[in-house]
């Protein structure tokens, strides 16, 4: 298929832990044990799983923040982990990340304008200012907010700033690691709507990591369920959530506390 954006093949990641005993080899954690999937442009894939299932490790490898033990990540046909450093830096404009904690992911001493402009490389100041204004506008903030500091904003607005920073390079792929988990229900709804609108407007592709199946169901076309470093089930959202094939998916769905008994 020509419109494949992201192709992940047999990804394995081991982490070596500190040695527990002097003469024995250091214990190894197998965070990913062979993960493969392809993601077409403009689609969004949700990754669900519990803590320790490897979802965040997968995000870090796709973002080329870490090097896999085995396997490859190909974005637009290029193997990210085989690119020379300078080319990788140039390629980073195509994939950006939004983190969970809108308080921890923005530098408190920088103005919003500088935070949002950070991913831009080799763009002159006037152009950068214009694009910061556009990006802030796209996420529902004002261009004048560029002069403020992060502490002047609420949690939901900070997450909008983080999304503006991801959008400014006009990326093809946005990796979002639990982007709404730290937000209140009413603010979460605003950010989810924003993500949906941005996808329609700019055609970005999301790799969306969450532990919340209802959020995944809302945002994603496809779901991959991870457990202990494997993808145990992968399919369209409707298929996986309405006719779960794997026992673990069924357990996850059954565990969600619902208000269904009352409504």
């Amino acid at each position, binding site marked *: 298929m020509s419109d494949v954006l992201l192709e992940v093949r047999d990804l394995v990641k081991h982490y070596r832990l500190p040695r527990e005993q002097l003469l024995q080899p250091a214990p190894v954690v197998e965070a990913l044990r062979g993960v493969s999937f392809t993601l077409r442009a403009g689609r969004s894939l949700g990754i669900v799983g519990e803590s320790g299932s490897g979802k965040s490790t997968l995000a870090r490898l796709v973002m080329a923040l870490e090097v896999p033990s085995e396997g490859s990540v190909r974005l637009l046909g290029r193997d990210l982990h085989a690119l020379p450093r300078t080319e990788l830096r140039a390629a980073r404009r195509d994939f950006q990340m939004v983190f969970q904690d809108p308080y921890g992911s923005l530098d408190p001493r920088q103005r919003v304008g500088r935070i949002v402009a950070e991913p831009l490389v080799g763009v002159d100041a006037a152009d950068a200012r214009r694009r910061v204004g556009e990006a802030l506008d796209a996420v529902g903030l004002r261009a004048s907010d560029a002069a403020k500091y992060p502490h002047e904003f609420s949690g939901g607005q900070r997450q909008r700033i983080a999304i503006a920073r991801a959008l400014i390079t006009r990326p093809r792929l946005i990796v979002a690691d639990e982007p709404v988990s730290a937000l209140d229900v009413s603010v979460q709804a605003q950010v989810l709507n924003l993500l949906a609108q941005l996808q329609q407007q700019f055609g970005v592709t999301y790799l969306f990591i969450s532990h919340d199946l209802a959020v995944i169901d809302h945002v994603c076309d496809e779901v991959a369920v991870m457990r202990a470093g494997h993808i145990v089930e992968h399919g369209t959202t*409707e298929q996986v*959530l309405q006719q779960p094939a794997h026992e673990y998916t069924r357990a996850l769905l059954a565990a969600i*506390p619902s208000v269904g008994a009352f409504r």
Partner: protein
Amino acid sequence: MFFFGVRAARADTARNPRARRTPMLPWRAVGTPRHRRGARHNDTVPSTSPLLAITDLRVTLNTARGPADALRGIDLQLARGATLGLIGESGCGKSMTAMAIMGLLPPGAAVSGSIVLNGQELVGLPDDAMCALRGDRIGMVFQEPMTALNPLHTVGDQIAEPLRLHRAMGRSAARAEALRLLERVRLPQAAQRLDAYPHQLSGGQRQRVTIAMALACGPDLLIADEPTTALDVTIQGEILALIRELVEESGMALLMISHDLGVMARTVTRLLVMYGGTVVESGPTGEVFTHLAHPYTRGLFAARPRLGAARVDGRKPLLATIPGRVPELVDLPAGCPFADRCAWVVEACRAAPPAPVVVGPDHAARCIRVGELGAAP
């Protein structure tokens, strides 16, 4: 003689620390462990009086931007063995209410109104008397078990601490009781885990340990502040089931704080919806969920993404959002705190804080237009 008198008093408190810490309540037998007294409570306290009664509780905090009214007149009652949930978004005052009950408000907070637990007024209670209640009559479970536990002490010692402090138990008796508690909260391999440190346990296991600590003295009231928010969904289910079971079994009352409507549906029979430091809706959980009397409750419900909601052209329709954002406590509007975000707002809403309007049996909402909203969508 004066010195002898002081010494004698010291010696006495050394033997029985409770004598110094707490003014003995009239119905409490001195020195008898609580779990053996059990039924005697009801003999002396009239059965009509609730375990916890909060009347017109107001808390004002000192902030950099001036005084902020964090709680603006909370009224609630909780009977023995009953369950009550406080739900709302950050800054609505739900945790502040819990902190006020426990006497853990930040320094400089001004409190007025009344909090009566077991017939004892807690507002204005001296620190040492409050210390004697905390961990004894009031058990607490917090959101993040790793920060609630001391990383330098074993799990067994931490569960034994309230027993040694409040019950003056010896080391071995407290250890035996700690083991019984760990078994009661169904921590696997409890006997071996007694000497484990918190970092050797998983998140769910740690939360079981903090629950065991909260239960140690057989409290009358368990306050659980977002006890499962940091846990995975399958573990969350187990912990909620455990809390429910312990509440039924021990007859203690539960005050549950959460932002999650589903968690509330599973654990509490009565619900208070909080916004801007006031209770905007209160009623039996089922009634609140069925009628959604207050516009804010409706907004909260509509804003949740729902599993299996219908797709249009392969896409989910946008979520219904509540416009604007939670107002800061310093600049809450004078009238209804929700007025600036409400679709039904009229001029009268901004005039004065609305009084509760009865909308059903035991069910009230603070909204002057509640009668005109129609049935829940």
